[in-house]
């Protein structure tokens, strides 16, 4: 390199030096094109379900028809790229197998989002199968109350209150202001121990830690599963190995594996991401190789 920072020397050397400092705007532009093309194409990437996806699949399958699965939706618009496919796949699985589920929101903004996702999925399911899904009998949305999102201690206080007496915590009202005591799905449900399984869909692990660290001490029988974003998933894997978590769905990949198990590949958002993820990963890999070859070649010429 010369004093102005430009590659110097003969043509070959300059080329390899240039490979180490590609303009970031060029990289973003190429990535933009790759992602647009990959997202537009139908997904052909083979997905093989791992043991974690199988464990959650088996746990949902084993849920008796008269029991309820609690889905804690502790995510927002920021992480919808990963949490949306996870939630949609789980709801679809519950619907096709006739499992009842209750939803709880982690944030004021999240509740309308996941409510819309579930209502759209329920409507599509009714159209496809002709089966009638009744709100209040087959599923319920309890909504959100202040405190469910916030720093660690706030979440812990909330989860404790939530786990102890759910109807009281929600003022005996659901998201649509219906009386909980008149909802058949809520008969026999008072606290967290009355649910068959709790699935925490989240972009952080505070909720998962509260379930396995705090609430499981009061209700040791509860099964807890996590559907979390990829960034925090490695921190949660030890809890699956120890049996504290029934299963862990890791980012879009976990969602795609789950979609494969329940036959939701065509509509699943996890499968649609697979193409683009593969394209982007190949591009990043090529950049890494180019940069390293450039470094080695320019050092050899020196």
């Amino acid at each position, binding site marked *: 390199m010369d004093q102005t920072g430009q590659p110097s020397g003969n043509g070959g050397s300059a080329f390899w030096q240039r490979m180490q400092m590609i303009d*970031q*705007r060029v990289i*973003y532009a190429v990535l933009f094109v790759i*992602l*647009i093309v990959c*997202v*537009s194409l139908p997904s052909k990437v083979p997905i093989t379900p791992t043991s974690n996806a199988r464990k959650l699949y088996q746990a949902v399958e084993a849920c008796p028809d008269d029991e309820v699965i609690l889905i804690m939706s502790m995510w927002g618009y*920021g*992480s*919808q*790229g*990963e949490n*949306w496919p996870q939630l949609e796949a789980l709801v679809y699985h519950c619907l096709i197998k006739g499992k009842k589920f209750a939803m709880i929101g982690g944030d*004021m*903004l999240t509740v309308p989002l996941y409510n819309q996702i579930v209502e759209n999925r329920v409507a599509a399911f009714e159209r496809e199968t002709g089966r009638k899904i009744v709100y209040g009998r087959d599923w319920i949305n309890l909504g*959100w*109350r*202040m405190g469910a999102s916030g*720093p*660690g*201690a706030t979440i*812990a*206080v909330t989860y*404790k209150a939530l786990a102890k007496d759910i109807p009281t915590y929600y*003022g005996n009202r659901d998201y649509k202001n219906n009386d909980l005591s008149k909802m058949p799905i809520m008969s026999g449900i008072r606290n967290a121990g009355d649910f068959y399984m709790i699935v925490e869909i989240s972009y952080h692990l505070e909720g998962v*830690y*509260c379930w*396995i*660290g*705090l609430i*499981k*001490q009061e209700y040791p029988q509860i099964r807890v599963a996590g559907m979390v*974003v*990829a*960034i925090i*998933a*490695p*921190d949660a894997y*030890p*809890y699956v*190995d*120890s*049996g*504290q978590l029934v299963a862990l769905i*890791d*980012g*879009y*990949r976990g969602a795609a594996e789950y979609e494969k198990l329940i036959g939701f590949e065509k509509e699943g*958002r996890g499968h*649609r*991401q697979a193409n*683009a*993820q593969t394209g*982007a*990963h190949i591009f*990043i890999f090529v950049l890494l190789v180019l940069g390293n070859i450039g470094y080695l070649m320019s050092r050899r010429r020196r």
Partner: protein
Amino acid sequence: MRKYPALIIAGILFASFAVAPYFFGVIDYYGFGTLFAAFLVLGMMSFLLKENTFYRFIEHMMIGVAGGMGLYRWWYLTMRPRYWNVLLENCRGEHPLDPMFFLLFLVPVFGVLWYFMFSKKHLWLSRLIIGFFMGLATGYTVQQELGKQIGQLKAMAAPLWGGDYFPWESINFIIMFVLVVLCMYYFFFTFKREGILQDKLAQGGRIAMMIGFGALFGNTVQGRLSWLIDRFMFLVDEVYRDVILTQFFS
């Protein structure tokens, strides 16, 4: 005017592609909202090229919206239904008097204590409430950590081989056990490490941690890309297919 070219160009583009078609009935309200969202997404992405006024405008708009939503959430969803209305109803005698009701009068007192941190003379009053919350947080954290870590210890104390495990699970378990010991050894500073063996053990711990960090970093890249791909799915599915193809060219 020369200071804000990006903002002016963005405004003209937005007016041409979203406001005007909506005004003339080419697109419906959903189409207008989707195009508006697309402009915001592209505006945020424009930061990748360089810092610009359009990006700054959208950033400030987001902060403003978040602040407004926070206020709404604080008053309409929490303070009014759970505090103010309860206080009024009890004062009017609409419910049988609950002795716990009088605790509600303490809430503003506790709240005001936070503001004494701005006074040098009465700073100690703010420490009361900070101490209260620190104690609360510590109590919950200790209980939570114990619940988490005892489960981990119990799992680590299981037999390495045999039992109900499949052979592969046993191998997995042995690898995990060895890595746990190596990592713990790396952070064991009570005595001075001497000799090749001790150095190699500590080095093994470092390599184990680096593998863990590598997995973490790989997952981070995958996660960030997922969030980006979601926006591209929005641009292709909702903006291009649902609005541009369906509404503009239908």
